[in-house]
């Protein structure tokens, strides 16, 4: 009578939303650490990029991330439809319960989760097209099409490389230069910064909400989880904002 895994209802779907959302948060940490190498040095960033591409597991991880993203988006849309249908006749006037009691945690962030989510989804599509598939929008293509004149791994081999291996001395794409060229344009940098603010808005509600959906909301550690969510949001989104900001301010060139 009772089916095996019951994720196909309002509680189960929120659990899926929470798991996929937190998984993407873990990805964000890795992505941020990698990207911050750009501030340290362009060669460091390019070396990291080439190292990632050389790993055979990366395409599998990418597919996994895509699946996680699609689950998150699909469940959000199904839940949105259900929520929309759950109140077919709207109120004549409706105010936030916050006006009555401070116990409500409703914020603009939690109110516009779907809007911020859609903006982030569009940003992800643009961002992947922009930098993963090297499509400059505001500057000339870097180097000769997809290959730059900069040679990575000159001289001694790095981790994962062998002197006689095919990668030694191979021309690699200068992603760092593309990123710097693109984000030097104030409009492109502005788009990236605005999208990071949108992400911050999303995460401000999402991280602590995900823990609640997973069942981790208890008087003993509820405050701690709220703080964790806020600090995580600040560090991750602040870190990502730093990159276009420093480039457009010509600190990183």
């Amino acid at each position, binding site marked *: 009578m009772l089916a095996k895994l019951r994720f196909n209802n309002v*509680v189960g779907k929120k659990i899926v939303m929470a798991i996929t959302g937190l998984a993407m948060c873990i990805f964000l940490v890795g992505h941020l650490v990698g990207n911050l190498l750009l501030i340290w040095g362009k060669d460091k960033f390019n070396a990291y990029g080439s190292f990632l591409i050389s790993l055979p597991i990366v395409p599998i991880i990418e597919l996994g991330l895509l699946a996680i993203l699609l689950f998150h988006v699909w469940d959000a849309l199904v839940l949105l439809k259900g929520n929309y249908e759950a109140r077919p006749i709207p109120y004549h006037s409706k105010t936030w319960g916050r006006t009555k009691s401070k116990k409500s945690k409703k914020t603009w962030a939690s109110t516009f989760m779907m809007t911020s989510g859609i903006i982030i989804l569009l940003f992800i599509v643009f961002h992947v097209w922009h930098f993963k598939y090297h499509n400059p929008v505001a500057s000339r293509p870097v180097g000769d099409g997809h290959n730059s004149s900069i040679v990575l791994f000159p001289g001694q081999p790095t981790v994962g490389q062998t002197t006689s291996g095919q990668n030694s001395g191979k021309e690699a794409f200068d992603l760092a230069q593309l990123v710097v060229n693109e984000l030097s344009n104030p409009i492109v940098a502005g788009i990236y910064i605005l999208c990071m603010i949108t992400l911050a808005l999303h995460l401000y509600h999402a991280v602590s909400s995900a823990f609640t959906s997973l069942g981790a909301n208890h008087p003993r550690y509820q405050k701690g989880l709220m703080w964790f969510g806020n600090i995580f949001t600040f560090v991750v989104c602040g870190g990502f904002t730093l990159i276009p900001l420093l480039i457009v301010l010509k600190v990183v060139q």
Partner: protein
Amino acid sequence: MSASNGTKKNMNLKLLVWRQSGGKDKGKMTTYQANDISPDMSFLEMLDVVNENIIRDGGEPIAFEHDCREGICGSCGVMINGVAHGPDEGTAACQLHMRSFNDGDEIVIEPWRARAFPVIRDLVVDRSALDRIIAAGGYISVNTGNAPDGNAIPIPKEMSNDAMDSAACIGCGACIAQCKNASAALFTSAKIAHLALLPQGDPERGERVIRMVAQMDAEKFGSCSNEGECEAVCPKEIQMTNISLMNREYERAILANKK
């Protein structure tokens, strides 16, 4: 004005009330004047006065649900100026007093809005969806025969406190009315929690949460966005931690249930 220290004078109010003659009627907001309202009246008493006037003028009185008027039965409940049960914290509409309003205020009064709560008449909605959620699993198995010894089963004090806090839910439906998604998560979770926390509820623990969540889903309530609007308007101050407990119970059940 030293004689009337701390008291207000009688008020004149403008009411904007949802009128709907039945399930098939489209319904509309109608304006009423409530004059000479004492600040010591309860909100429902104010509606009584308005209804007396309507009846005297040969009209159909505003239908609203009420029973105990002591804030413990869960019958009353309307949206007052866009907030379930009105502006006072931890208060049902019947325990809300007119001193919370000012002379000349316009008060908007609407029924709970949810697909699962069809309007029967005016401000009265059909909340039997909540009964069906309880019937799906909000029960325990008890042996027939003599009443068991009251202290035969040891229950930690904190456990019993938490269970009693959850059991305080009167099923008024304010949480659903206030929720932007019309989610019944707070109601259902309170009903799950108050049995799951006690040893008496243990035999059905896994089945209960699966069945009650399935019923909540079948009644077409929305999903929980963890905003806590429900907790803010609950007249019994049921906490959001119940929702987390329900999610925990649900995860435990889908991982541990054998069926």
